[in-house]
């Protein structure tokens, strides 16, 4: 297998192309995805190559997602692009009350084989209505699969897995990471939906993250390594299904857990990770776990303000350093 250097957005584009080539029943629909080649270029060249299977829709997200559902249960394999995750909110009924129920209630006779791609997160100047990180809302909804790719390789692999899957999958891409390049194995076998990845090993602390926060975590880790702190980093990739095994293994080794995400703290999926680890192996924790996340607020447009709100590699670094430095509870110290 040979790897090709691609940007994140090009990796998405390649995965879409692969899907349309592989599955004759695959279609792509969304705003400006056909003739204009996609607002971010994810669908570049697809209409030229696949014609009417790539469809420009009106600005009607509810209709779009419901149409994808109806098409899916009728044998097609739709991939919907929702331009910003914030716009999922105009189509929540279709996602939660319709898509998520269909397989279960129909006893599997109707197969909601569809993928909803979107992108999210704050970039300098993006306003409160174009900046949210919303994965936690969907990870709370049984029936949906939820994934977030943190680099080009995952963007390619996860999107292929999603489209090949018979479940409704929501993928939250990162607009901020779209230009970032990485090595992608275009002809790798198609993965299943699910699977976390231990991206760095480490002995002192375990850092769990996903999506846009991962590069910042990796930068913080490298900087900490210079100070002699060894941090294991796990890219969760999929919130549903949740693969906690590598996290538990690492925490059993380090006794210290941090979870980092761009979404705001309260009610974010970091709480679920902390809760699960605590419920499962709470006795192994040498110090209380920490969450590093956006402060609970609306995302302001001014970069001066949004930087203060969002977790950046600087803040991540200092909070991780503090976690590593915190004295272990008496008891673990005793047992060590």
């Amino acid at each position, binding site marked *: 297998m040979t790897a090709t250097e691609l940007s994140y957005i090009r990796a998405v584009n390649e995965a879409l192309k692969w899907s349309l080539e592989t599955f004759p029943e695959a279609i792509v629909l969304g705003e400006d995805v056909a003739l204009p080649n996609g607002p971010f270029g994810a669908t570049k060249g697809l209409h030229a190559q696949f014609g009417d299977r790539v469809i420009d829709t*009106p600005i009607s997200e*509810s209709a779009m*997602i419901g149409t994808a559902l*109806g098409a899916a*249960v009728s044998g097609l394999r739709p991939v919907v692009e929702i331009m910003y995750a914030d716009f999922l909110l105009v189509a929540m009924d*279709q996602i939660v009350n319709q898509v998520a129920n269909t397989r279960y*209630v129909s006893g599997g006779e109707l197969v909601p084989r569809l993928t909803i791609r979107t992108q999210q997160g704050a970039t300098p100047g993006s306003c409160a209505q174009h900046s949210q990180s919303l994965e936690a809302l969907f990870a709370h909804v*049984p029936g949906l699969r939820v994934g977030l790719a943190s680099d080009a390789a995952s963007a390619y692999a996860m999107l292929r897995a999603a489209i090949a899957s018979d479940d409704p999958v929501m993928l939250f891409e990162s607009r901020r990471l779209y230009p970032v390049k990485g090595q992608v194995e275009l002809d790798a076998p198609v993965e299943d939906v699910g699977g976390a990845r231990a991206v760095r090993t480490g002995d002192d602390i375990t850092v769990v993250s996903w999506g846009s926060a991962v590069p910042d975590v990796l930068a913080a880790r490298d900087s900490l390594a210079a100070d002699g702190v060894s941090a294991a980093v796990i890219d969760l990739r999929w919130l549903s299904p949740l693969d906690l095994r590598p996290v538990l293994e690492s925490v059993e080794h380090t006794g210290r857990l941090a979870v980092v995400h761009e979404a705001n703290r309260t009610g974010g999926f970091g709480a679920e990770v902390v809760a699960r680890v605590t419920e499962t192996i709470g006795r192994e924790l040498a110090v209380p776990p920490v969450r590093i996340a956006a402060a609970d607020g609306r995302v302001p447009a001014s970069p001066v303000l949004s930087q203060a709100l969002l977790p950046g590699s600087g803040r991540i670094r200092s909070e991780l350093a503090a976690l590593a430095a915190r004295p272990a509870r008496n008891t673990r110290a005793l047992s060590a």
Partner: protein
Amino acid sequence: MELAAYYQQMCTIRRFEEEAMALVQSREIAGSVHLCIGQEAIPVGACAALEAGDAVIGTYRGHGWAIARGVPLAELFAEMLGRASALNAGRGGSPYLMAPRYGFLGENSIVGAGLPMAAGAALARKLQGGRAVAVVSIGDGAMNQGAVHETLNMAAVLGLPLLLVVENNGYAEMTPATALTAVPAHERAAAYGLRGELVDGNDPAAVAQAVRALRADVLATGRPALLEAMTHRLVGHYSGDAQAYRPPGELAAARQADPITRLAALISETEADGTVAAADEAARADVLAALDLARSVPFPDPADATNGIYAEELR
């Protein structure tokens, strides 16, 4: 379809609904149900004009559509009784059951939300090159949901073989349609460049004729269409609704136009004496036999409560 056949089906639906009401009152059905008593001619007429490959989607008031589509009464009863029915094993219940094997993609208990899904079924049929359409029924009140508007426009610009049947029974729950909807549904069709027709929803033959014509038109032109069928809800919005809000005389007048009484009278003009009574009796017998059968279906296994949420249970 002959009038007698319409009559037979409409009677069956009526008896089915009456029995459902009794089952709610005796608490054999848990919760409440939404009955289509008074509206039977619409599903019966419409389904008479459809083909097996067409997709049909209804609302929570959808038992009549399921029956007209050929879903066995016993399976419907079993589902409503919370049994491990062959339809949805008790998961759907009265307002959200699905029977795709019978060309009935399902009910929907979010007002207006079946329409986008129907557009998708229409898109698939179009891309698959078939000669089939998707038909979706919603109520007059549902016309004011955003998803309905989005879908009618999108189906128009994408040229989807979609037929929307609006059952105008004069009420959305307890509020008269006229207080909620600025303009009747069939007039709204023009806002999407669609053909919009009005039909007497208490006349199954008229409904069948209208649906047949619009279905052909949809397939010929590649444009969706809308049919508004005027009718009355002869019972409460749901099984526990006493209808204190209906103005005096309104219900009595509506009962005068009861599609079943009307059709019985028409049939009696031409058919042999006893035709109607025999149909009534057959309907009653079918419904009671189906209920008996449904009662023999076991309850679902509680261990199955979370099975099949995903294609593969990965966890």
